[in-house]
């Protein structure tokens, strides 16, 4: 079975959805502001003859006319990093500030981690955690290449992540970019559909619930957790949010993504979910000609620490 069939009822334009899923994605780079600057990247691409188009929704996103960016000077200098356009969303939703304590629970290979470091102006403590040593090696390589110095690389099971060794007991923000069934990456990886099974969806949804619950527990009151996946499956998206909204003290925050998106779905396959899951964003490939994505922003409840809500007053 083609798993995309089951999502047809969720999309507004099934033909456009299916057609977009068939088209390959362009090679896209994000400007790494720790070492580079978007206008200087453009000037360097011009000087060496690398063709590109700049995204209208983000100053630092360049679509390249050729293939891999690896043989360009901006890449050699660590000014840019190859990252699918839509996968820039979770770090923007988390919106960390310089000097904060931030956890990227499933960090490797580090595209979003290094984007978080840049948003933090490379100041503070960013923990990039992953379980797999091979993937951790890729994370370290990418972070070094991009000049990131605010990163602690850790290897723990993120479902019971311990902060004991870090000298503090809660993060300001946590990103859970969860392992998932990945149909949203079909444009760069058609195998994602061939290996898809419903059993795997249910199995991984259990993991995702554990990851998101621990993320909420490890975040200070008033702090922010972002949950993202590259799957369309409500079992791995809204159902995970619904579970965690019931089990932990948190709520879904409205977040207006800079790309065209659809709201989360409140029912699927006979189940109904907490109406707040509508505040999540579903990005389908045909909406912006990108990969598919799901992203939700949660606010952790309880009494906020002093100053945590200062931006409301300001």
């Amino acid at each position: 079975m083609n798993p995309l069939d089951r999502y047809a009822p969720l999309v507004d334009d099934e033909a456009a959805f299916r057609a977009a899923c068939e088209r390959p994605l362009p090679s896209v780079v994000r400007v790494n502001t720790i070492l580079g600057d978007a206008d200087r990247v453009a000037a360097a691409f011009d000087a060496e003859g690398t063709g590109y188009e700049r995204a209208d929704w983000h100053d630092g996103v360049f679509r390249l006319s050729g293939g891999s960016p690896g043989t360009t000077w901006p890449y050699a200098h660590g000014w840019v990093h190859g990252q699918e356009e839509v996968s820039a969303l979770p770090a923007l939703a988390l919106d960390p500030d310089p000097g904060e304590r931030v956890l990227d629970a499933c960090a490797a290979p580090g595209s979003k981690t290094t984007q978080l470091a840049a948003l933090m102006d490379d100041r503070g403590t960013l923990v990039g955690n992953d379980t797999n040593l091979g993937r951790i090696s890729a994370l370290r390589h990418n972070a070094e290449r991009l000049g990131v110095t605010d990163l602690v690389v850790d290897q723990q099971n993120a479902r019971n992540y311990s902060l004991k060794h870090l000298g503090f007991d809660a993060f300001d923000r946590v990103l859970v970019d969860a392992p998932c069934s990945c149909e949203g990456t079909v444009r760069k990886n058609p195998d994602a559909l061939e290996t898809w099974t419903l059993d795997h969806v249910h199995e991984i949804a259990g993991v995702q619930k554990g990851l998101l619950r621990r993320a909420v527990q490890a975040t200070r009151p008033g702090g922010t957790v972002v949950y993202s996946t590259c799957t369309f499956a409500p079992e791995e998206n809204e159902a995970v949010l619904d579970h965690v909204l019931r089990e932990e003290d948190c709520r879904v925050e409205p977040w207006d993504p800079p790309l065209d998106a659809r709201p989360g779905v409140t029912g699927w396959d006979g189940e109904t979910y907490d109406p707040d899951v509508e505040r999540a964003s579903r990005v389908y490939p045909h909406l912006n000609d990108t990969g598919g994505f799901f992203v939700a922003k949660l606010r952790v409840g309880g009494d906020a620490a002093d100053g945590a809500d200062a931006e409301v007053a300001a």
Partner: protein
Amino acid sequence: MSQRPGGSDDAPENDGGRFDRLPATAADRRVPGRATRAEVLDWWDERFGVPPETFDGHTFWEKGSGKLWAFADDVPSPIDVEGVGMTFLRTRQEHWKPTTTAVKRWGRLATRNVVTLSPGEASAFAAGHDQALPRWDGDWGYLVAAHELAGDPEPIGVGLYVHGELRSVVPKGYQEELPDLSAADAGAARSE
């Protein structure tokens, strides 16, 4: 684990399996052979003219023998994790060596021991080739190799200058065949 860099038998040894914060000064040093924060700041200042205050927000760590890391915050020491900041300096050898990534990050602040390469030389250097560079009349040893890109100088990596030759010590994983920008400059000049 056989390395014993001098000192008395009961002195603590460098433990290659964890990260330890560097002592501030020689008076605070417990582990023989470990570089101090003061020595590291002096080295960047003396070798490259990178001002010590550049690293005010960073703590320095050793993991493995002589490999130093710079971290933009602080955590309890020792700490058993997979990484604390970025590798930036190789010590416990006669000539300390900055990492390629450190030179990309802080090399723009260097005011001495910086060699600016022509477009052709820059491409050869980035590809990992050694080349004769008789025009260099500065110090021997590790240099910041830079080139002009998009209007400003930009460090490419670490070069080792000895016997009239600039050796590229760009690690294999970072070596790349990159465009020779002299052709691009000529093209830009023609189109004006």
